[in-house]
């Protein structure tokens, strides 16, 4: 589980201070899946860095399983908009990278087996010997997802992972993501600016206000199943979509007033 408890954060430059987070609190239960949406530039990526322990909050507490996050820890998986695959490794070696960092008792064969299992799940098993540059953007992002899950992290953080993909590829990856969720047991936090993505993937959607970001609104999505895209077009989803759109509009409007 992930918990933010009254978190403040600011960046200092030589001339000024920029407050990005202001009294942000939210809670993602164990094996839960929450999405954070908000106006662009509101500090969403800062949230991911805080969870990963890459930066420390200026004030307030960030907790993972009830423990304060002080430094990076190995039970986290991360994926970004940029898949950042290493060009000098093939896909299989790229996926196995975290196992070279995180302590484990796996043999080489077991590592490969686990990587292949994931690659199979996302439909990349035939490409394990290819270089990243030989793959399409969507395929690279799939490989990046496999890499973020190979060490079986308790927490998965996705920072606009599908942002650079075209609409059809993105929808394919949503389905892949829910497949991955069924097979693994991780708590997931996704940062996105796509409302439909948030509704489709997450159990709860948290809307952040404009900068400095604080929780403005949150809503449980309460869907029955996650295995097809049709559920995005039910009256229930449409209603959610409209509510969230209104909230985003509100966040942007308030931000403009403040500036």
């Amino acid at each position: 589980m992930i918990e933010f408890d009254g978190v403040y954060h600011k960046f200092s430059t030589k001339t000024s201070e920029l407050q990005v987070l202001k009294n942000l609190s939210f809670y993602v239960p164990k094996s839960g899946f929450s999405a954070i949406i908000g106006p662009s530039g509101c500090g969403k990526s800062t949230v991911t860095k805080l969870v990963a322990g890459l930066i420390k909050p200026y004030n307030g507490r960030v907790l993972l399983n009830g423990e304060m996050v002080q430094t990076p820890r190995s039970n986290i998986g991360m994926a970004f908009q940029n898949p950042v695959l290493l060009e000098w490794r093939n896909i299989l070696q790229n996926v196995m990278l975290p196992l070279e960092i995180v302590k484990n008792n796996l043999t080489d064969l077991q590592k490969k087996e686990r990587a292949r299992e994931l690659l199979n799940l996302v439909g990349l098993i035939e490409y394990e010997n290819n270089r990243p540059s030989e793959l399409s953007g969507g395929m690279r992002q799939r490989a990046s997802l496999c890499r973020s899950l190979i060490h079986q992290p308790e927490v998965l953080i996705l920072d606009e992972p599908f942002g650079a993909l075209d609409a059809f590829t993105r929808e394919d990856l949503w389905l892949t993501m829910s497949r991955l969720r069924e097979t693994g047991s991780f708590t997931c936090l996704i940062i996105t600016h796509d409302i439909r993505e948030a509704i489709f993937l997450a159990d709860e959607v948290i809307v952040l206000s404009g900068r400095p970001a604080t929780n403005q609104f949150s809503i449980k999505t309460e869907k029955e199943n996650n295995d097809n895209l049709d559920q995005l077009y039910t009256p229930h989803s449409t209603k959610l979509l409209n509510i969230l759109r209104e909230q985003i509009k509100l966040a942007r409007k308030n931000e403009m007033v403040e500036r």
Partner: protein
Amino acid sequence: MRRFLVPLIAMLIFVMLWEWLVWFNEWPNYKMASPSDLGPAFWKYRILFFSFGWDTLWRTVVGLLLSIFFGVFLGMIMGFSKIIQEGLYPLLIGFNAIPKATIVPILALIFVGQHDFNTVLIAFLISFFPIAVSVSIGLSTLEPEYRDILRALGASKFTIFWKIALPKTLPEFFGALKVAVTLAFIGTNLMEIVSPHGRGLGALFDSGKTNSDYPLMFAVLIALAILGILLYYMVVFLERTFAGWADQLSR
């Protein structure tokens, strides 16, 4: 077939023109050499060519190895620390701006008689700069996400350097090494020519100069060209072996 034939014919035409020019002007050997003089010159000094050629080669390679170690180390600390970079950069640029031919007599005077040491030192001094700069730029322009994927797992700075930063910088490094190998070769020859009682192809060239032995001088030039090409392709071979993936990337 055409790939070999065209350069070969061009070379033949060049050599024939050269031969004709010397023959037409009736230049004697103390004024200018013709291509047909080179064969005998090589044969006459064949033992010196081999032993001095070897001297020049190993000095260049040792100097280059030194500049690889030092250049990579310097580039590494400059790439990782902004303060060190700000402190060292002006110094490095200033040092690089000095024409190295002026360093040669200074070194020759300081370490008088230590010919091998001098030569290796100048080859090193002249060639570490591009390596240091390329490595430092490669490291400081590493996208933060690359660092974050490993840092988020608790990887140490060294692990990040070894697994990501270093391999990612290899293409730039080899680009710089191609420049550095040529520079080191120049450095070696500078010292061999200037330093008295020297060995190496540069010294052979110098003795040709003293005796107005143009066939010998031109023969040395040809030998140097061959050695230079050899060194360059050694680097190309290493590049293909260690950074071949970058080659495929640009295609």
